[in-house]
């Protein structure tokens, strides 16, 4: 039975050959009879029966070939996957951000082979994980489309072999290596090797903005016998006096100083005290904005102020100061300084050697030498002196320099008489540039051997004596570039490359073999053992002549000029970086340009701009077109629009350097602002960024300045004094009545049950518990100095688009996080407050209930979320946001839109070239793959870095433990802004966790805690700590209309 076979045909029964063949080939007909048409395909007769097949095939082929245009995308899998790289998981490598000698230890986040973000290296004892805006943005430069891509001779591409050969022949006799400060011990060795090969050569260090005055003051014949800058301890100083020193923005080492400064500004509510900071300056700097008391001085007066202060500190009288306010100020400062001997610090940004000697004498009198000033650890980042460079310049003119090798220095742009340098350069036979980009000096050089970006390089740095920081590459060089040390080694005839050189050097120095070397590279830093600050011997003999020199008042005209560096642009390095150009200046809140900073009094006198009365101020503030003035110093003049900056000395104007670059260094630099370096002057061998007699003329022209914030005043005269957005107090008031803010809040919320019951009674809706994680952020306004590192960190972490100057001028900026700057009090010398403003992640968010499509909604963890896919772009949420933190994609900034070719608008909203540049394949390499690039027409805003939160939660989950946010300083999650902040203003974490850092700071600081616009019952998850100003000077009461 089981073997019974049911046959279907006789053929099957007999299993004949014919049956087997037929069975094998069940469908004998060919699908397409192509084999019949060998040869003449076109002439082949199409069988009638196959017509439909041909038709179908050809239609499909045509459709595939024509209509389905599939772009070629290369996906290259790892044939052999490296053990430590998991696709989609970021690796962090310790390296060092180096810019013009300034070196900050960082961790580079490398995602799928691409470095996309930099974080501070917390192991560094210098910066402790602090970052700056320029550091955050520097990763963009790696992918800058303007980077040089190959070596050239006279602009023609050549191979490295060819250029090495011709350079080796061309270098003859003594050469000069002109660089920005080099702190790397191995690089100095390399330079020495080069010098050894070509005897008579030398190394010249150039700083666009030099510290000659200070270096020379500290030098042998003057104060301390060291041509160096010591390290400072702002954290140990109870009284800090800045004499035109912008130490939180641009002076010497702002990141380190911010960290130290913030330590003294943080308030412990159990024992209320903080450092006191006085600032004397002509224009309002970010440092001056943070000061407790600020005095306006003309630049020419600074020496007198220093001398008067020295006299007062020595118990003498204050003489030579006309202004009564200033005089009283100096006496007050002197008294405070004397009361805090050994715990005070006076610093000056003056380029006048004599002023610096007087300042040294003040510090000496106060016992700062060896307490707040440490001479055992020197600051190596600013070594260039102007005399060195002027010597080089005259040598070049004399024709005694045969070869000039330039790295990073750019005197053709930044020397005050750049024409001198350009003509002198023509007398140098062999000019070699090792710069990464075709900057002004490189354009003049015959040989260009582009160097790597620091993220592609090996190296080391010694920013402070004994503090080493290492550089390791995080990506293969993107272009045909070579590290400049390699080039020098090659030309010096050394056999080894720089990597080997570095490794050998350090393995010898460190001992411990390969393991020790790898360990050092992994941590990225070597910190010296902690030691007490050491003093240096002070030469008091130099003081008397210096005093005589400064006391003779400088000849000054009616108006004076200060050239300053913006936090973002610096000496001009930031100019090619769109993120830095678009970062608003903390004081002027302007982007993309430089301008003339002018006091309200001068604006009223010269241009009839009245910002004293609110009604008239409107006229000035609401139009981006500002009047242009012509500033003339000697025979150099410059035409720039003005911005009225309260706090500027009435006879002084300020102009930022670093602008007026060409598009050759990047689209972002092209044509923005004007070069102000020619306005600097050489006085006593030092470049002084001041002019004491200038002319200011009206031109009748107007020019656009793109400001992110146009209304400056917080204490509006009309409409009553606002107090709910932010809160500021004076320290004596706070010490006397610590509960003032609490009481104000209680009063405000009294109709709704007071602070305690406000959440439940302030609404008609039912109350819901918030179990599990509840994210919260705390911002300490007392520590914030407005530096903007958080803003740039946020932009890069979250792929925030660059919109360009024209769009910023139309108030289309896209920043998720902004630092609002307000003036209060006296318009002529106001107090300044910085308030970082971001999405407050309100638990009762006004934006959420108005969205018709639920595109923005609340998570169970307290996040106010955006679902970009859902958003239809009604902008109702942005209108209804009391904090105005929502940002709309007005145009296709990112190229993410489904409409092709819609970035070429001509009539309205023309996009700047830099916006298009951001959409190049190269520029887009920096995008964070964890964050969606938003398309046109959708709303976006701060997400509390939700991608990081998910990552952190996952990490905790994998380890089966609760999430840690600051418990014992262990962090699973940190937002980008929090991580970037050098002043540690921002604390973030799970507010439902009693042990988290956020719960702790909220618990420990109930007296200063407030929520912005709390009375609206938005229930924000962001809280602020009120700003406390350490002054007994009361602000004048705001008059009410």
């Amino acid at each position, binding site marked *: 039975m089981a073997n019974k076979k049911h046959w279907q045909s006789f053929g099957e029964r007999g299993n004949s050959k014919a049956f087997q063949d037929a069975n094998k080939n069940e469908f004998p007909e060919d699908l397409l009879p192509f084999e019949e048409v060998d040869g003449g395909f076109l002439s082949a007769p199409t069988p009638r029966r196959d017509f439909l097949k041909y038709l179908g095939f050809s239609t499909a082929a045509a459709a595939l070939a024509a209509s389905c245009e599939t772009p070629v995308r290369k996906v290259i899998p790892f044939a052999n996957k490296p053990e430590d790289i998991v696709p989609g998981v970021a690796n962090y490598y310790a390296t060092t951000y180096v810019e013009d000698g300034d070196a900050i230890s960082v961790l580079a986040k490398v995602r799928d082979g691409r470095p996309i973000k930099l974080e501070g290296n917390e192991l560094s004892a210098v910066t402790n994980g602090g970052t700056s805006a320029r550091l955050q943005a520097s990763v963009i430069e790696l992918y800058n489309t303007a980077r040089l891509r190959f070596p050239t001779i006279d602009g023609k591409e050549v191979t490295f072999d060819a250029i090495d050969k011709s350079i080796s022949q061309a270098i003859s006799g003594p050469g000069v290596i002109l660089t920005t400060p080099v702190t790397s011990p191995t690089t100095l060795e390399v330079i020495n090797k080069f010098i050894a090969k070509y005897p008579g050569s030398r190394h010249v260090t150039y700083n666009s903005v030099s510290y000659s005055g200070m270096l020379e003051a500290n030098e042998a014949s003057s104060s301390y016998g060291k041509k160096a800058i010591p390290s400072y301890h702002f954290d140990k100083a109870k009284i800090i006096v800045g004499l035109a020193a912008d130490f939180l923005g641009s002076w010497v080492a702002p990141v380190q100083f911010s960290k130290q400064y913030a330590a003294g500004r943080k308030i412990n509510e159990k024992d209320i005290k903080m450092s006191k900071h006085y600032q004397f300056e002509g224009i309002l700097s970010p440092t001056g904005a943070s000061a407790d008391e600020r005095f306006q001085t003309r630049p020419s007066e600074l020496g007198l102020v220093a001398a008067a202060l020295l006299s007062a500190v020595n118990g003498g009288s204050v003489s030579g100061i006309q202004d009564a306010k200033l005089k009283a100020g100096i006496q007050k400062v002197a008294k405070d300084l004397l009361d805090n001997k050994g715990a005070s610090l006076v610093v000056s940004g003056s380029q006048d050697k004599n002023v610096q000697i007087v300042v040294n004498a003040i510090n000496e009198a106060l016992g700062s030498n060896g307490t707040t000033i440490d001479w055992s650890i020197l600051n190596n980042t600013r070594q260039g002196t102007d005399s060195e460079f002027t010597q080089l310049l005259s040598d070049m003119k004399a024709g005694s320099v045969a070869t000039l090798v330039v790295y990073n220095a750019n005197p053709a742009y930044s020397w005050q008489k750049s024409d001198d340098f350009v003509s002198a350069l023509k007398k140098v036979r062999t000019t070699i540039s090792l710069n990464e980009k075709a900057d002004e000096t490189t354009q003049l050089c015959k040989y260009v051997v582009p160097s790597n970006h620091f993220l592609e390089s090996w190296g080391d740095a010694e920013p402070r004596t004994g503090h080493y920081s290492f550089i390791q590459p995080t990506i293969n060089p993107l272009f045909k570039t070579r590290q400049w040390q390699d080039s020098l080694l090659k030309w010096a005839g050394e056999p080894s490359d720089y990597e080997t050189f570095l490794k050998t050097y350090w393995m010898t120095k460190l001992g411990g073999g390969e393991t020790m070397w790898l360990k050092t590279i992994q941590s990225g830093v070597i910190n010296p053992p902690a030691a007490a600050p050491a003093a240096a011997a002070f030469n008091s003999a130099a003081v008397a002549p210096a005093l005589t020199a400064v006391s003779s008042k400088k000849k000054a005209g009616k108006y004076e000029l200060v050239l300053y560096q913006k936090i973002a642009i610096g000496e001009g390095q930031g100019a090619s970086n769109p993120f830095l150009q678009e970062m608003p200046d903390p004081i002027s809140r302007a982007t993309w340009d430089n301008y003339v900073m002018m006091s309200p009094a001068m604006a009223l006198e010269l241009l009839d701009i009245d910002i004293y009365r609110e009604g008239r101020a409107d006229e000035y503030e609401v139009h981006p077109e500002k009047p242009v003035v012509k500033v003339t110093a000697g025979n150099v003049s410059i035409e720039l629009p003005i911005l009225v900056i309260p706090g500027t000395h009435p006879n002084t104007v300020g102009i930022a350097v670093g602008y007026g670059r060409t598009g050759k260094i990047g689209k972002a630099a092209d044509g923005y602002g004007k070069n102000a370096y020619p306005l600097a002057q050489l006085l006593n061998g030092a470049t002084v960024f001041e002019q004491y007699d200038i002319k200011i003329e009206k031109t009748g022209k107007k020019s656009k300045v793109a400001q992110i*914030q146009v*209304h400056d005043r917080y204490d509006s005269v009309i409409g009553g004094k606002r107090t709910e957005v932010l809160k500021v107090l004076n320290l004596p008031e706070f010490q006397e009545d610590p509960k003032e803010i609490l009481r104000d809040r209680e009063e405000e919320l009294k109709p709704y049950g007071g602070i305690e019951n406000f959440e439940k009674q302030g609404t008609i809706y039912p109350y819901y518990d918030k179990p599990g994680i509840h994210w919260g952020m705390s911002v300490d306004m007392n520590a914030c100095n407005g530096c903007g590192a958080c803003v740039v960190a946020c932009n890069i972490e979250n792929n925030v688009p660059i919109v360009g100057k024209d769009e910023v001028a139309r108030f289309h900026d896209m920043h998720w996080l902004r630092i609002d700057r307000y003036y209060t009090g006296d318009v002529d010398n106001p107090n300044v407050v910085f308030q970082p403003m971001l999405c407050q992640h309100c638990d009762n968010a006004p934006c959420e209930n108005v969205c018709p499509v639920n595109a923005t909604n609340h998570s169970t963890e307290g996040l106010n979320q955006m679902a970009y896919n859902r958003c239809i772009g009604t902008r109702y949420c942005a*209108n209804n946001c009391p904090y105005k933190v929502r940002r709309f994609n007005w145009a296709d900034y990112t190229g993410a839109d489904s409409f092709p070719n819609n970035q070429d608008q001509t009539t309205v909203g023309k996009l700047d070239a830099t916006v298009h540049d951001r959409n190049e394949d190269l520029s887009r390499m920096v995008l964070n793959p964890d964050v969606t690039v938003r398309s046109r027409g959708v709303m976006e805003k701060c997400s509390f870095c939700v991608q990081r939160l998910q990552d952190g939660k996952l990490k905790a989950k994998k380890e089966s433990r609760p999430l840690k946010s600051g418990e014992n300083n262990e962090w699973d999650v940190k937002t980008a802004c929090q991580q970037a902040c050098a002043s540690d203003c921002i604390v973030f974490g799970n507010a439902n966790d009693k042990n988290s850092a956020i719960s702790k700071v909220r618990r420990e600081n109930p007296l200063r805690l407030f929520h912005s616009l709390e009375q609206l019952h938005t229930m924000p998850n962001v809280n602020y700590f009120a700003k406390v100003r350490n002054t007994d000077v009361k602000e004048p009461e705001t008059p009410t209309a």
Partner: protein
Amino acid sequence: MSLFKYESELREPLVKGSKSYHQITEDLVAPIEVKPGKLWYIGFFIALCLLLFGVISVYTEVVYGIGQWNLNKTVGWGWDITNFVWWVGIGHAGTLISAILLLFRQGWRTGVNRAAEAMTIFAVMCAGQFPIFHMGRVWDGFFVMPYPNTRGPLWPNFDSPLLWDVFAISTYFTVSVLFWYTGLLPDFATVRDRAKTKLRKLLYGIASFGWTGSTKHWQRHEALSLVLAGLATPLVLSVHTIVSFDFATSVIPGWHTTIFPPYFVAGAVFSGFAMVNSLLLIVRKMMNLQQYITIGHIEAMNKVIVLTGSIVGVAYLSELFIAWYSGNRYEAYAFFYSRADLFSPLGWSYWGMIAFNVLSPQIFWFRKMRRNLFVTFFMSIIVNIGMWFERFVIIVTSIYRDYVPSAWTVYYHPTIWEMGFYIGTFGLFFTCFFLFSKYFPVIAIAEIKSIAKTSGDNHKWAVAPVEAKEPEVFAHEYAH
């Protein structure tokens, strides 16, 4: 003189010229049956040009993004929503005239209701363009529709006043169209019956739904009209109430105001009547309908204008009072500085609003002014400009300076495409209106016949010679 004792001394006749029913039909169908005049062609061409400009403006905005307008991070709504509210407001008069006046048995409405209803429908069509095209991603606009879908499902947020708008306006539009069309049925039948060309017969035949004029048809027609009037009446109040919720439910000082619903409705009626006035004055001139749309009609509407204008005036004063009385400094700033201060950046718009909406309509307390066509026409334009200012004041002066001073801005003035969109809706409106005036009876023929006093007038004319005689003469003649 003695003739007038048969007429009300207070109320003048609603139709002048003692028309017979036939005459009325002849007069009112004539525009459909003859070629339109040169003026019509010129007007229609201009309207089409404006419409084309609007289409180009909207195309540009859709392709390049909302950045083609000068809105910004602080002022998220500007001309777009201002124009939306303005057009919706205008779209109030038609239904009010038709529905509410029908319920109140106001006979005078028959002369103007058809055109007013058409205006309503076209105005709502224009209004609808703005919320649609103000969306950043208009192609995803259907996300607001609550229907079961495969997108999650994506369900709209019923808390959002914008969603209420969607329902309010679409409902209003639907009911208005139905109401209008119901009234049109007998008139289409009239045109059909008189048609001399096949095409006209066919098209009007289809449009009239087989109306025969039987008593049953009339009875159903009347019943349906009343039902729709009953439905439309609350809608007149609800539409602008809900539009006002867009602002009233927000947290923005100047928007967050409980007075908005009645204030918006009054304002809407105000602007609607003004617009009806502007249009009718043109139509009656262009189509020789002076005897159907009489000075009496114009005067009646001017009375409504002065009433509603005064209501909004009271509303403006109440807002100022509350801004002061509440002690809310943000609201005080919005009202006393951003608006009422003439020298603040946008103060001109507030005072423009006050001058045009509150002060100028007071001229209509004078009968002479109410009955002056030139003044009426001028005022109808002024009122509509004033009402545009009102919406602009509410929307822009509230948000450009609200809570956080760092976000304040006034850099808001329209771009060419923003203006083009607005101009384009005028194109759409007038294109529709010109087509309407050519192909539809602009006055409800059937309804106006109900108020034409043909029999009474015949009697009046017959009795006139008798009246003229002395009683003795009359008695003498009568006896013989």
